[in-house]
């Protein structure tokens, strides 16, 4: 197979893999400051709707391919919208910790989904169809996606080695300690949250064109699980993990489907590889959390037993309460 033929055949998969890597990074960014946010799919959906609405209803219809400049403009607008929404959401929500933050971001994604299903401008349950194509074939999207991924990786590489990166790590390890050292945790948590949102919004704008159609099934709770799996399976100590995770896990269903076609494989196994891909996916998520070495996790792993710590905290609370009586 020649290089061009290969790219044509696997164009969709290759671009999807790189988009997966970018989405993994959008979840990884808040995690740099130890914040488990599941809001990325919400910003992804927002970016997609901005691109879909602008290109089908606002911009004038053009002969031939959709102008690249207009795509870049959409990406910029998606980034700005995501940033504004992320700041408005992040200021109240980032006061919450751990599980409460995760739940609040789930609620945010669900509210956006219900809005998308009911508003007229988003096309309701049907969604938006026939989003114009800027490239002749799907592999053309590499012209946009490769530079974006490259820039993001360089940016994150720089970020991790800079002062800001060390501050984020300090907050991730121990927010209270960082606070007492004179760091303003809210400021940096918001920064990493907004950066993650902007990335998700931009990827959404590209994906709307790439997928040709956009509806309320894009960027739901299921998507949160998938993106999280990208980060977890790849590892979350550096930005390389989510990139590798996003690429490999996006390709995994295709690889399994390919394996199902290998001759000599028992029928039932081939069948399972084909139809049970998501079962394997779920098992991978469970196994990557259960068997991951303690230090490879995305948040601080407590050295003492979590339960002992929670119990101690409750005891202290009780004492505080009794003391104040």
């Amino acid at each position, binding site marked *: 197979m020649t290089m061009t033929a290969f790219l044509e055949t696997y164009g969709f998969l290759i671009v999807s893999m790189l988009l997966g890597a970018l989405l993994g990074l959008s979840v990884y960014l808040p995690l740099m400051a130890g914040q*488990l946010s599941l809001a990325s799919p919400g910003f992804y959906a927002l970016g997609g709707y901005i691109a879909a609405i602008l290109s089908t209803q606002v911009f004038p219809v053009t002969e031939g391919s959709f102008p690249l400049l207009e795509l870049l403009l959409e990406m910029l607008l998606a980034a700005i919208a995501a940033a504004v929404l992320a700041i408005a959401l992040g200021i*109240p*929500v980032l006061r*919450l910790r*751990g*599980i*409460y933050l*995760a*739940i*609040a971001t*789930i*609620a*945010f994604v*669900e*509210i956006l989904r*219900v*809005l998308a*299903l*009911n508003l007229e401008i988003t096309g309701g349950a049907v969604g938006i169809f026939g989003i114009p194509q800027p490239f002749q074939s799907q592999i053309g999207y590499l012209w946009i996606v490769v530079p974006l991924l490259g820039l993001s990786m360089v940016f994150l590489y720089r970020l991790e080695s800079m002062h800001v990166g060390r501050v984020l790590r300090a907050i991730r390890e121990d927010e*209270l*300690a960082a606070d007492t050292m004179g760091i303003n945790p809210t400021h940096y948590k918001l920064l990493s949250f907004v950066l993650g949102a902007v990335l998700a919004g931009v990827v959404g704008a590209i994906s709307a064109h790439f997928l040709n159609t956009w509806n309320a099934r894009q960027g739901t*709770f*299921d998507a949160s699980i998938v993106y*999280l*799996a990208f980060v*977890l399976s790849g590892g979350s100590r550096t930005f390389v993990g989510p990139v590798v995770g996003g690429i490999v896990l996006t390709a995994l269903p295709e690889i399994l489907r390919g394996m199902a076609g290998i001759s000599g494989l028992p029928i039932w196994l081939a069948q*399972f590889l084909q*139809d049970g891909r*998501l*079962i394997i*996916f*779920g*098992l*991978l*998520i*469970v*196994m*990557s*959390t*259960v068997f991951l070495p*303690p230090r490879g*996790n*995305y*948040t*601080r*792993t*407590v*050295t003492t*037993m*979590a*339960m*002992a710590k*929670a*119990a101690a*905290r*409750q*005891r*202290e*609370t009780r004492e*505080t309460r009794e003391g104040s009586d």
Partner: protein
Amino acid sequence: MQASFLFNHGHHSIFTAILNGLSIGSVYAIFALGYTLVFSILGIINFAHGAIFTLGAYFSYTLTGGAFGFNGLLANASLPIHLPFLFALVLGSILAGIASVIVERLAFRPLRKRGADPLLTLVSSLGAAVVIVNVIQYLVGSEIYTFPSDIYGRLPASINFGTVERPIAIRTVQIVIFSVSALIVSILTYFINFTRFGKALQAVSEDAITASLLGINTEKFITFTFFLSGFLAGLAGTLVGSSVSIAGPYFGIAFGLKGLGVIVLGGLGNIPGAVLGGLVIGLAEAFVPADYSGYKEAIAFALLFMMLLVRPQGLLGRSVIQKV
């Protein structure tokens, strides 16, 4: 404002809305009790709870003799037995409880033994949910299954609570759901507050280490809590499935997310709070005007969101002071 509200709706529709709200709200309550029991003991959210809910509905459906559709490994299969609905409900829920214990062993216990961050357990439970949902889909496909219409035997389809001239018809299903849920909540309240076992359970949730030092077998209680939690999820799943239909393997996921709204509203880990939260959200949904019914699904999340911002400990929760 109250008066015009009453006027616009008319008395009987208010009555119907309240009964419908209590009916769905009571299912939210028993479902959320399962969530909150696990949270009160381990301080974690079990995201597989919604998947266990689905599983319970499928178990009960199978036990009533329901056949499967054309897709999946078990296409066209059905059990040769036709259990009466109440037996299927109980047995299906017990099976759901057992499934929940298995999830605990595989996805929770290894992390607990390692003393891992509670957030990791959250992710692991998400993985378990993905596995369960897709195993269901692999086995029986993603068709919609409806319980047979005669599951309540000779009971009429609806009961008139009004007069002959102004009927207020309430579906029998709603009444059965409300009765079963009210019964379960009462039994559970008694069990937790007045039995030795229940008091031990409270002790474990208050302080697991001290409880174990005082001779309580903590692991045994965790296993039992997961069983109880799965049982409640199975009950809720079967009740909702029998009231509407089993809308495919994913139908518990949306319900599970809504359950988050219920427990946050009442206070995470707070048992009366889960009941209150369930009823509040059920009633709030029942009063959404028909023109805006599309937004009904967002109510639980909007309430959740506001609650987290205003009072994160929930309506009945007590705040925890964080110390270094």
